[in-house]
């Protein structure tokens, strides 16, 4: 006998009490940065020369004479006596809140401090003196952490000297939209200026490939998020001569001969600094895939590394070295692309090309034939960030410190010394 009633009753009760909407819970976690403030008075008073101390977060480096100047991100500048690369030692520390970039010319050290430009007399290397401060010359509107959301700056609370990382979680019924707060793109620090610049009056230091400061002759060129700023530094008191928009997400500046090569997120810009050094003129733009992109130049060829990642534009897979023929500066041409792992800063010396591969180590490339760049060696057990090849000594920076190699034989790099930073340095001191 067929018995449908209980089944129908069961079905009816079931359908009565149950909704037919899918239930979704979305949890979004992300890292956000919130500003660390310092009052104006404290900010101005905090610049000081102190005893040497351990490096926490090595940033840009600058080689000048026998000294290494190492930016500790947002903290200040370490002064390291490097007269013997096999036995460098800390000589002093200059506390500079909000410092990310440095450059040296003659006896003067130029450093940014949030939006200000500071000038130190370093005629006594181990006892620098602040001699000048130019306020509010850099555009800090986008100096947050590239690629990460950040909380808005409240100017009434003081000057932003650092950013603190906080973890945020948002739980939504259904779909969350974008996390609240603006998305920022900012300085990635670490930079390069060059001693190769034409017109240099001589005593200019050497920096890494990711610099935002560069000195040629009597001009200090600095890039921020979107601008190229020119200072006349013929006198100890710098004078701002020019500021011009370049593009968006400007990252690095590299002076070579009579030109500036400026790396941005999606292009390499070439500027003429010979015709009017105080007001560089754009020569050409070489577009490339969107990514982080330091650039160095040797001879008629520019070498650009592109990388993706957390701090870089949201394009994945752009990890490569591009070789660009710049013999015709009005019409740069790409002549080669080489796959990389996660390239950061790079440096070149007489065809020996050194590329920091981030967490993947350091690569030594033979670029003696720019049309056929070959990998010579890959050192994998170090973390690297930027490099300076200088007269046979390769200075490699990374989150764990600074390593110096003798590269007189690139087939057989010989480690000269290690200056530890961050947790490694703390462990050493325990």
């Amino acid at each position: 006998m067929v018995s449908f009633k209980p089944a129908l009753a069961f079905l009816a009760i079931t359908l009565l009490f149950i909704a037919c909407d899918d239930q979704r819970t979305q949890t979004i976690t992300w890292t956000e940065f919130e500003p660390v403030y310092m009052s104006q008075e404290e900010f101005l008073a905090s610049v000081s020369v102190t005893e040497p101390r351990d490096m926490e977060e090595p940033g840009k480096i600058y080689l000048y004479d026998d000294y290494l100047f190492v930016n500790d991100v947002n903290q200040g500048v370490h002064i390291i006596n490097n007269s013997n690369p096999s036995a460098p030692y800390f000589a002093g520390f200059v506390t500079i809140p909000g410092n990310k970039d440095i450059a040296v010319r003659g006896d003067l050290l130029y450093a940014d401090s949030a939006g200000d430009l500071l000038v130190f007399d370093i005629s006594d290397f181990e006892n620098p003196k602040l001699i000048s401060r130019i306020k509010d010359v850099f555009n800090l509107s986008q100096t947050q952490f590239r690629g990460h959301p950040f909380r808005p700056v409240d100017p009434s609370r003081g000057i932003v000297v650092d950013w603190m990382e906080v973890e945020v979680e948002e739980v939504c019924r259904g779909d969350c939209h974008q996390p609240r707060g603006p998305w920022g793109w900012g300085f990635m620090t670490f930079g390069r200026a060059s001693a190769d610049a034409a017109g240099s009056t001589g005593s200019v230091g050497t920096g890494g490939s990711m610099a935002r400061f560069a000195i040629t002759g009597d001009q200090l060129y600095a890039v921020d998020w979107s601008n190229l700023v020119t200072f006349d530094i013929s006198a100890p008191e710098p004078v701002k001569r020019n500021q011009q928009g370049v593009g968006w997400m400007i990252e690095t500046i590299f002076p070579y001969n009579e030109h500036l090569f400026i790396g941005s997120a999606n292009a390499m810009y070439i500027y003429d600094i010979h015709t009017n050094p105080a007001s560089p003129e754009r020569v050409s733009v070489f577009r490339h895939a969107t990514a982080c992109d330091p650039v160095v130049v040797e001879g008629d060829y520019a070498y650009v590394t592109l990388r993706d990642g957390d701090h870089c534009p949201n394009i994945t897979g752009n990890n490569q070295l591009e070789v660009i023929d710049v013999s015709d500066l009005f019409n740069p041409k790409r002549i080669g692309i080489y796959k990389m792992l996660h390239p950061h800063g790079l440096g070149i010396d007489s065809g020996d090309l050194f590329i920091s591969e981030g967490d993947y180590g350091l690569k030594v490339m033979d670029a003696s034939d720019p049309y056929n760049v070959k990998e010579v060696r890959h050192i994998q057990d170090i973390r690297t960030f930027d490099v300076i090849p200088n007269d046979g000594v390769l200075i490699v920076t990374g989150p764990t410190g600074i390593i110096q190699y003798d590269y007189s034989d690139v087939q057989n790099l010989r480690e000269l010394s290690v200056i530890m930073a961050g947790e490694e340095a703390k462990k050493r001191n325990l």
Partner: protein
Amino acid sequence: MKLRKSIFLTLLAGVVVFTGTAATPAAANSGAGGFVRQLGADWLAGNDGSTLRLNLTLGYQYTDRFSAAIGAGYAFYNDPVDLIPVYLDLVYLLGQGSNTAFLQLKSGFSRSVMRGDEHTSVRHRGGLFLQPGVGIRMNDMSITAGFSFDHASWDLDGFAGRVVREKVSFRRIQLGVGYHF
């Protein structure tokens, strides 16, 4: 992805072949002591969409009214995952004869699969599967109606270390047809 689908279809074919060559099954409602095999298709409808699920079950008729089977299916949610439920299928006949109503409970776990390659940075998981329902068996065919719960979750890696974790319970009205063989 194609490999996973191929494995699933191969297993499905294997089960069909196995059950087709197994001991003589009990005819539908012919009493205790025989195999029950069913190939079915469910329409899963809800306010947030509708989709199809294919099922295959193999079990045993323990008493005149009660059978238990294990089954597997493939639900084409594509949101962004599809689900492969593996479940225990309990059926209680409410009457005797070739035409009768029955109560049914399917419960188990689903495994998730991702179709296509548009989601390159996703970790996904299935979850609990539950489907109470009723049905009517008419000779070799049956029709069923019930409510289907399918749980799944997935993580998408976003820019700048952002992780989006989504948990979803697909809550759908189920209408199905089955063929007993």
